[in-house]
């Protein structure tokens, strides 16, 4: 195993890890506040990818400009999701909510099959194939941009949650819903907004990978399973944890692929997943009482 190969693999793992982070952050925000495991998260990411694809091809816009549309669109989808589907059963047993989100996932995937066919679509851009080289190590521009977007939006979300009134309200609703209500916080609206934010994260992650990832109705499945591992690793509900967790899992996958034979690659990240659940169920950065 030569040095270049190891560095190259770790770098690629780190960059794709940024995307895992962004997907996981959306998931963890929703979980942290509403205690809902959103199975439809991958499908929302898929919607983000299709939205990006159509905006980029029909309006002839730059992929990254598409965020201006994708972000509010997915935010709205998330709000409506919470308002009309989750809200009515907020007090139902947890498995009902779980199955509901599963139902929404299947609905969205099949709707995508119906509307856009199960065909693979690849967005062709002039910069998708730009690479920088340091020695024999290649750095793909679009991967770096995806990573930077993850960094930017995670940071933004962190600031919103910790420095603004809205963020304080969200955190209050998450920690003590009844108390928050008594303090005059409109919990229902906070839930709408939170689901909107989570969904927007999935959408932005979708945009970030569209320049280098084929789009099809089931594409979300590929990322969302990893995102669950990341959420557990980082600590359910912890934005910072999800961000770091994404990078760790991205690199763990690379290391797994380097040292383990054939299809054993993902074994490493799933071993981490099981270990964390067994020995540190709060994750690396989760609250002890969460």
């Amino acid at each position: 195993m030569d040095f270049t190969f190891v560095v190259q693999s770790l770098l690629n793992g780190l960059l794709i890890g940024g995307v895992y982070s962004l997907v996981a952050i959306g998931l963890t925000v929703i979980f942290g506040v509403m205690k809902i495991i959103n199975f439809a998260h991958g499908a929302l990411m898929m919607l983000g990818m299709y939205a990006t694809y159509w905006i980029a091809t029909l309006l002839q816009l730059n992929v990254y400009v598409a965020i201006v549309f994708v972000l509010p669109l997915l935010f709205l989808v998330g709000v409506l999701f919470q308002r009309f589907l989750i809200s009515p059963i907020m007090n139902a047993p947890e498995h009902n909510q779980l199955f509901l989100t599963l139902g929404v996932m299947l609905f969205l995937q099949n709707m995508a099959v119906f509307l856009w066919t199960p065909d693979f679509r690849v967005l062709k851009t002039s910069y998708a194939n730009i690479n920088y080289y340091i020695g024999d190590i290649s750095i793909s521009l679009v991967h770096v941009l995806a990573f930077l977007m993850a960094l930017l939006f995670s940071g933004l979300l962190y600031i919103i949650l910790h420095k603004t009134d809205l963020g304080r309200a969200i955190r209050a609703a998450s920690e003590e819903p009844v108390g928050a209500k008594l303090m005059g916080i409109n919990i229902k609206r906070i839930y709408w907004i939170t689901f909107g934010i989570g969904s927007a994260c999935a959408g932005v992650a979708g945009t970030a990978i569209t320049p280098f990832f084929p789009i099809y109705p089931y594409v979300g499945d590929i990322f969302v399973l990893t995102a669950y591992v990341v959420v557990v690793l980082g600590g359910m509900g912890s934005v910072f944890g999800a961000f770091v967790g994404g990078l760790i899992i991205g690199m763990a996958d690379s290391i797994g692929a380097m040292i383990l034979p054939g299809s054993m690659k993902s074994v490493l990240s799933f071993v981490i997943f099981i270990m964390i659940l067994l020995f540190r169920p709060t994750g690396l950065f989760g609250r002890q009482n969460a």
Partner: protein
Amino acid sequence: MGKLKKNDLVEKKITRREFIKNTARATATAATIGTIGFPTVLRAATPSEISIGHIHPLSGFLAFDGQEMRKAVMWGVQEVNDAGGIKSLGGAKLKLIDADSEGKPEKAISEVERLEREGVVAMTGCYQSAVTIVATQIAEKLKVPFVVGVASAEAITKRGFQYTFRVQPSSSIFVRRGLGYMQQLSEKTNTKLETIAYIHENTQFGQTLADFTEKLAGEYGFKVTKRVEYSVKAPDVSTEVGKIKAAKADLIFASGYFGDGVRVARALSNMRVKAKAIVGIAQGGFSHPKFVKELDNEITKGIMDVNFQFDPNSAKAKKTLAGFEAKYGTKMSPSMVYAYSPVPVIADAIERAGSADRAAIRAALVKTHFTEHILPQGPIEFSDEGQNINANPLLMQVLNGKVEVVWPEKYKTGDIVFPFNK
């Protein structure tokens, strides 16, 4: 005395048996006379329509692919009917009955049984190996001839079935052609080729192809020095591609589906992996028109693929493809060519059998020597196992933003660039 008595008894018994036997013989004779004596009666019983069935994933995960396959089969049926139907049966028309596998093997059981009840004389399908393995098994049990269009698993024709036939190349044929073409090109261009690094997806499809390559490489003077597998669900395959790069093999072989094929090709290009040639073996993306159209030329140029193709020289193929496009407004993809091909083969068998009897059609299929096809091969003939022995995938290469057939020379539409040092 006792002996005599016994004989008496025996004689009596024999007489009884003889009676039954004679009755049976008489009936058989009468039936034979009937056949010879009253042909007109039989002819009147000739059906004006003969049903054949097809089973594909018409809904569900692979619905798009399944609907494409359906169009191809429908076009095959229309061609037969437009040309006057089955002449030996008084111009009887073929009637196509749909069956939907939904992409699930378990669903194939009930659908094949339903087709049998609806009286189809032969079937075709199924696009997925897993579904085909089940469907052909049920068809075998029900004694309905099954001519497989698209499905590559070796096992399909390895179970000693009497009623299973397959038009498309099996996995081992794909590998033999791939290795053979490379050997020929190595000689022709004086390029020393010895080592192969193989990157493939890790389900039965990719594993089987890589297994065969490892096993057969020696026969063609090659050696597989590195084998790397990945999951089609892996978002990133760059470490796997890194392993391939480190192997520094003369040739890179790749097998997989469209989406993962895109990731592999991108990573190969991003990481500047060099080899004399990058060759897909039945790779779902590398020779797909979409692959070339939607990916950057930098990534796709020079990539090769050993895969399905129609015969670019055949007038019949041109006519079929043009007719199809005129009717459905879309081009017939290489997979569709193989979904289409069983229909004329079945029609030919019914024609020669001169009967709508399944066993007779099966007997005719065994003796198939069919030349009116659109495939780049000699006559379609089936081995004892039911495999189209002349099935012939071609070598294609992405040249100037188009997928061209480059080898064997007889079928070429473009001039090969070999070796291709990307």
